[in-house]
């Protein structure tokens, strides 16, 4: 009994500290988001007015402007096409590659793939641009998707390889004995068992492509412009439309937050599992 009493205050103390830390972290992370959300419902003059920080007359003018004056629908569709395209292709090429690296210990190959990721992306831009320009492909979805693959592919390969490596070989051998081909066991055993890792990698790759600005700046045209580029339409040489900018930021962040929350379970288990077993 005495012992328990001594531990109790300590426990309470630890819990308090834990929650203080949680609240602090939440505060730091959420305040900018909440500010963005509230600013998107204000006029410019109210955004800059500290007195109207919390109490203000909300307006949806900014959102209307985002979709009418700045025609944001097209960039949203463009971003979806590019991000999904890059992620799907990266999985298509990256998963078999990761499998091969894990099963046949092709560590040199994986290092080469990582090297591509380490070199700053801007290094590739001019060559990419020249090649696409020669092929008359600048401003196409294909060029944007291929450029994004440069980042997505290594990401997928490196996150998924330890997963495949951690699955006991015996499982596959059992399948082989039953007459399964390598391809079949890859599809039916390896992929389902590594789903959390694959989800994590796919979401990260999607978010990266969704937010990528540099590739889009150089390789997109007015009709294939993606969201991160469209956001800058609100910043002009002689004025900044803060309200519209914040509304646009909400529109951009929204889908990513929703996707991340929906798949959070997989992402978290994916990240920790990868960290421990990889």
């Amino acid at each position, binding site marked *: 009994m005495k012992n328990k009493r001594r531990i109790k205050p300590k426990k309470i103390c630890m819990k308090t500290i834990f929650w203080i830390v949680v609240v602090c972290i939440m505060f730091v992370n959420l305040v900018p988001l909440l500010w963005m959300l509230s600013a998107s419902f204000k*006029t*410019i*003059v109210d955004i*800059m*007015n500290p007195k109207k920080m919390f109490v203000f007359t909300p307006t949806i003018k900014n959102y209307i402007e985002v979709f009418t004056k700045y025609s944001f629908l097209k960039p949203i569709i463009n971003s979806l096409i590019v991000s999904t395209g890059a992620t799907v292709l990266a999985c298509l090429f990256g998963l078999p590659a990761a499998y091969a690296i894990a099963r046949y210990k092709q560590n040199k190959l994986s290092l080469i793939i990582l090297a591509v990721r380490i070199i700053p992306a801007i290094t590739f*831009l*001019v060559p990419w*641009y*020249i090649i696409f*320009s020669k092929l008359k492909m*600048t*401003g196409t979805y294909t060029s944007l998707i291929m450029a994004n693959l440069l980042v997505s592919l290594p990401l997928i390969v490196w996150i998924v390889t330890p997963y495949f490596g951690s699955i006991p070989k015996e499982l596959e051998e059992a399948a082989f004995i039953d007459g399964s081909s390598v391809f079949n066991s890859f599809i039916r055993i390896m992929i389902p068992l590594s789903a959390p890792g694959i989800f994590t990698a796919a979401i990260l790759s999607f978010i990266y492509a969704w937010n990528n600005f540099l590739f889009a*700046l*150089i390789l997109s*045209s*007015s*009709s294939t*412009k993606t969201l991160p*580029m469209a956001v*800058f*339409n609100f*910043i*002009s*040489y*002689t*004025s*900044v439309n803060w309200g519209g900018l914040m509304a646009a930021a909400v529109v951009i962040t929204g889908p990513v937050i929703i996707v991340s929350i929906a798949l959070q379970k997989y992402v978290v288990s994916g990240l920790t599992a990868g960290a421990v077993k990889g």
Partner: protein
Amino acid sequence: MKKRNVALLTGAMMATALSVGAGAEDAGLSQDYAGQTISVVVCNSSFMEEIQKDIGEFEEATGINVEFESLQDAQVSNKVAVASAAGGKDLDVFGYRPLQESLLYIKNGWLEPLNTYFEGDTAFDYEDFFESAREITSQDGTAYGIPYLTEREILYLNTELVEKAGLEGSPKTYDELLEWCDKLNDPDNGVYALALRGEGNAAVTQFSGFLRGFGGDFFDEDRNATMNTPEAIEALQFYGKLCREYCAPGVLNMNWTETMNLFTQGLAAMRIDCDSQYAFATDPEASLVADKVGYGVFPEGPAGTTPFNVTAWALGIGSGSEHKEASWEFVKWAVGKDQDIKGLVAGNSSARTSTWESEEAKTAYPEQLAEVINESNPVGVATDRPYMVDGGEARTIIGELITAAIEGISDEDLQAKADGANARIQALLDAEK
């Protein structure tokens, strides 16, 4: 007229050629390049918003398709640099900042010489552009760009606060400016006398007016850097004092958007920056002081009245373009007299004399601002930053000096810093010889 043209265009191709001819002739546009597609990359501004709205009219009149892309200033440079370095085949018309890009772009051969396009074109009237604007977009008599956005360093005043302090008009000299600052500064109530750019690199342009006002400059005619002269030190200390003593806290991080917000919220009585941003201050949706904005000419220093009067943006045609004639049709229309007036009404500070003299200009611009602009134009200095190929680097070096001055260091320490900075700028200048 235009609606009729649309109907005819969709109706019968042959018939349109004749009828559009009539409509396009007024603007001197040609149908010779119909079917070509040109790509245009420019910087977001009120002028370009107008262009984007009316682009359909141009496409109808000429049959040229325009891929129009409007970006933020630094992004335009990046895109132009990458595309031009790769041959520039995909880039036809682009906006550029003559003061920091002309020399580099011309040196690299990225800009198409334009003289042959506009010579003899009385409707376009190249001579109509301000002389200083034509000069800064030309080299050795060859024009490489057509200017469309100019700006001057002026004084914005909050008339309510000025009246409250018992003041009238605007400060005419640096001494008067200090007097006004003393009277208007009211930090206890959160109101500061001045809003001035204090973020080193950004401040260089606004600082240039003071530097020249004290008789200094970034470098002399023989390209000897002069940032360590007594005049330059005096100007740095003066600018530093203004920022330190009369600007809101956090001035070291302020660029034009921050000083504009302080002014529009009524928290700064005066603001020194470009006149091109006036529309933001007088927009009731963006400004609490929309109906209390006054304007004044940049005050006179010991060496005279020396605000900058610069060409901030110009349109050029890429030398690698495969549709140069069609591109010129676009440039001719975009910065032609009619479209230029539309731009002015939307808030753009034009580079055309005829636009400023037009009827529209009299009503579109606040009267007092128009007066200030007319007064600033003849005395203005054509550059607001070190005009050299590596101007960006030089600007960073000068920015560091401004930061040091605002932080408030002694004359001796500043002199030592300036000596070092001057040597670095000299090295850059020498490398360009």
